[in-house]
Each structure stands twice: as C-alpha cells, then as structure tokens.
C-alpha cells in the first residue's frame, strides 16, 4: 500500500471514529453541566463550570430512585447471567455428549425457537408471569428471558469442538457424568462460558421493552425502564437525563473494555440480535 493510500485510510478511520464517539462524549460532557449551561445557544463543548448538578439530582431523588434502579439492574443482570450459564451448559452437555431418545428432535425444537421473534411471545408471557405472581418483582426480568435458545446452541457448538479424549480418560478413571461435566468439560470451556456470561449480562442490562411493561413500582424498576421515567420527569433538563444515561452506560462500557475479546468473538461466531 502506498503512503498516500495509508494516510487516506487512517483519515477515514479517524473521521468515522469521531462519528461514533462524539455523541458519547457529548453525553458525558452534558452530564457535567449546570441546567443553565446546558440551555445555552449556541452550546459550548466544555462545561463551564464543571458541575455535579446532574448527578446530585439523580443521587438525591425520592421520586426517581436512580441508585436503586442501578442496584436492581446489577442484581438482575448478574443473576440472569448465572441462570443462563447453569441451565444452558447442562443442557448443552446432554445434547453434545449424551445419547438419549429424542435428542435430535429436542435440539431441532430448541433451535427452531431461535427464529420466533421474542416480541411475538410478550403477550402470552405477560399473562403467564401474572399467573405466577411474578409481575413487579425482580424475578420477572431474570427468569423468563433465560429460556433463550442461543446459549444452548452456542455452548453445544463449543463442546462439540472439544475432543472427547480427556473426558473418556476421566470416565475410565471412574468419574460419573456430573464429575466429567464439572471437572473436565467446564474448565476447558472457560472462554465460551465467559463469552456467554458477558453477552447475557449485556442483553439483560440493556433490556427495555419487557421491563417497562412488567415492572410498575418506582422502587422496583431496572435502570433502562427508569430512564424512560426520568425523561418524562425532567423533559429538557438534559444534565440530569444525561447523568442517568451515563450511569447506565458506564458498567457496560467497562465490561466491554475488559471483555472486548469475548464479546467480539461471541458476536462473530454466531449472530445474536434482537
């Protein structure tokens, strides 16, 4: 590649990076402005003065307990992620390594549901959650989503890519299936488990449609559901709204920086969207 073309490529790369990053930087800068500062026309880039006005408003807020929403979201996403890992890995072990009646049919059924838009199940799932008495509890944002077929499909593919020799050796040494699963296969599968765990956490942390309809009490909301309320309550008080958005972004951005490899690998191996 010629020097000119290389320079051109970098110019384009940087210009695009600005397109993707500027809105996020603007969100952060606005969250550090005062109300008056954010209303100025034309707006200035840097806060003058740097202010904790927006964050103060969301920390001390009885009508919109934003920190409570943050804790709810953390708990829900962590527990959801663990539930997916536990149930999907066990099912994937059976589907990848054990022979039993109905295995092919079962797997086909599970994979088949990957192609049913989850939005089309919202109404019946709402009624089922209602019957179970789960509405307006954290359970309703943790459990039903864990029925997703993606985790099972993803881990089964990974397990099949691991040679079975080690497991056979363990079986010859007298290990039962549970021991083979927990002591041999799972330790070998750490990268895949990390990928699935992180993706499940992200999906649950960001979920919006389901929580806004199944959670009602202000103190029970998850953060994304609460942000909708915040927008209604603060209208054009953008430092407050952006402070809420920053609070919802920071954990996932940190997770992305730390687990970038796992996230990118998970996405490139099997699309998961919607």
């Amino acid at each position: 590649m010629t020097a000119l073309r290389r320079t051109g490529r970098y110019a384009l790369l940087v210009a695009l990076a600005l397109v993707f990053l500027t809105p996020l930087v603007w969100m952060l800068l606005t969250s550090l402005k005062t109300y008056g500062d954010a209303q100025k026309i034309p707006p200035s880039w840097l806060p003058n003065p740097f202010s904790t006005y927006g964050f103060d408003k969301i920390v001390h807020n009885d009508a919109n307990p934003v920190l409570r929403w943050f804790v709810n979201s953390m708990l829900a996403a962590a527990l959801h992620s663990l539930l997916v890992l536990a149930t999907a890995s066990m099912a994937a072990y059976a589907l990848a390594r054990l022979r039993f009646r109905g295995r092919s049919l079962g797997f086909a059924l599970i994979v088949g549901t990957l192609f049913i838009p989850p939005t089309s199940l919202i109404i019946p799932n709402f009624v089922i959650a209602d019957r179970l008495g789960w509405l307006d509890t954290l359970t309703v944002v943790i459990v039903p989503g864990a029925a997703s077929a993606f985790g099972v499909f993803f881990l089964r593919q990974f397990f099949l890519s691991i040679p079975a020799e080690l497991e056979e050796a363990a079986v010859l040494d007298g290990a039962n299936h549970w021991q083979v699963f927990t002591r041999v296969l799972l330790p070998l599968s750490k990268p895949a488990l990390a990928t699935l765990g992180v993706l499940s956490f992200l999906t649950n942390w960001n979920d919006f449609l389901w929580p806004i309809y199944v959670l009602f009490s202000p103190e029970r909301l998850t953060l994304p559901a609460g942000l909708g309320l915040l927008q209604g309550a603060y209208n054009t008080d953008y430092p407050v709204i952006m402070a809420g958005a920053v609070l919802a972004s920071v954990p996932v951005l940190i997770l992305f920086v730390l687990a970038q490899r796992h996230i990118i690998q998970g996405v490139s191996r099997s699309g998961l969207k919607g």
Partner: protein
Amino acid sequence: MPVADVIEAGAARRDAPPPAGRTTRRGGTRRGNAATPYLFLAPYLLLFIGFGVLPIVFGLWLSVHQWDLQLPNRPFVGLDNYQALFDSQSADYADWWSAVRATAIFTVFSVPLLVVVPLGLALLLNGAFPGRTFFRAVYFAPYVLGVAVIGLLWRFLLDANLGLVNRMLGAVGLPADTPWVTDVPWAWVSLVGVTVWWTSGFNAVIYLAGLQDIPAELYEAARVDGANGWERFRNVTLPGLRPVLLFVLTTTILASANVFGQAFLITQGAPGQQTRTVVWRIVDEGLRDNDAGKAAAMSILFALALAVISVVNFRLFRYRED
C-alpha cells in the same frame, strides 16, 4: 427449511466446529443410568417449556378468545380477532395498518444501509494494521449501550433547538431548524440514522469474521490474473461472503421489523401516530388497553409475516447462486 439454512450459514463461518455426530458418538453413555441426560436437561427444559413453548401454544389460545386482562369472562370468538384487523370498519383497523406501514418504512430504509455500511466498515478494518483493534472497538462501542441510553441521548442530540445536530449543521451554513423528531420525513431519517449509528459495528464484526475466512490465495490468484481492486471485490470478496451476507440480511430484517425503543423514546410516535411500530402497537393493545386476545392475534400475524419474509429471502439467494 430456513432454520437449517441459518445454522448452516452461521456454522460456515470461522471457528466452525467439526460436524456433529463424530464426537458425540464417542462420548456415549457408558456410565450413568438412562435418566442422566434428562436430569442434565431438566433445568433448561423447565424454562424452555414454561417461557418458550407454552407461550406459543397459549398465544394461539389467546388469539381465538376475547381475552380482556381485567375481565373474568373470556369467551371463545373464533377468528374474530384476526378478522377485525382486516375489516376496515373495525376500531383497530386504522391503528394496526398505520403501525404496519411505519414498520415497513423503517425496515425498507434501514436494512439496505445496515447491510452496506457495515460491509464498508469491515473492508476498511480488514487486514493487519496498527490500531485495528482500537478502531474496531470504537465502531462497535455504541452497540453495547442499550436502547434506553441511545434513545435518551439522540432525543437530546436531535432536539430542534438545543440539539447538537442542528447546531453543527448551522455552523457550516446549513439550515439549523430541521424538526428531526417531530415531523416526517425527518423523523424517519432520524430513526434510520440512529439505528445505523447504533448497530453498524455489530454487523461489521460479523462481516470481518467472514472476510477472514476467504483464503488469501484467491486474492493472489486474482491479482496474478490482473484483476483490479473492484474486480477482486466483485469476484472474490462478494462470493466468499455469500453465506455471511445472507445471515446478516436475515437477522437485520428481523431486527429492523422488531423496532420499538428508538421510536418509543426518540420520536415518541410523532408526528401523530406515524412512527408507532407494530411491536409498539402489540404491547399497547395487549398491556395498556388490556385486549390480550387481539394483541395475541397481532403477534401471530407478525411472526408469520416475518417467517414468510425469511423464507422468500433464502429462496431468492439460493436461486441466484445456481
């Protein structure tokens, strides 16, 4: 069978595991009793049946009943819920078809961009150069944020008076008073544009994996034959990406047809109800207006329509290959 095809398309990409069956046959159940596999499956199956299979069956059941969430009587009404959606005299007709129209507009304009723009990003990021991982991460970053965050953020950026977008347009001498979120066609430009900004990095990562699967020798051979850059793209890259393109196209159509959060938060349905989408209509009908029966009928029509689109999609691509 579209299901098998998507799996095939997905598995054809990098890190594809060896074909099923080989390893499974070796690790048979020599130890443990016949119940073991079912015990391993039980926890997931409980979830899968409760929130994956039951809602499908129950949804069909709801759709043939007049099922008001607040009323004790839920009489069987046959296909009335479906018929109402096709009967121009019914109360739900206008809202339903307005939502279908909104979803169709969004899908038709967003899908081509979400297929092409990420391909450009992937080509730009392909190959080894310093900073590649950094730029890939930057382009992907918006996708890790939820729709609530990007919705609030872009509602602000697109605000006609205080928003950064109009300010920046004004700074370069363009009109600075475009009503991005309150009038058409601007509302559509906003919803499509924000979605492209938000999810392009995701599709780009899928394309990148596909690009890395194309053997370098093919490019060498094309070069030896005197093919220029465009010809190499046309004759090597595109054919090599075919399964990935099909995968991206299908998943993107499904994702776009399911649009909800952007419209809910950024345009808030405006102007009027013009940007209220199908998913929004379904949850409003079922969970706000309590008519779960009609909402279930809508859900089923919606799922069927998407299934048909996916199948057509596969057929078209198949035949063009032959």
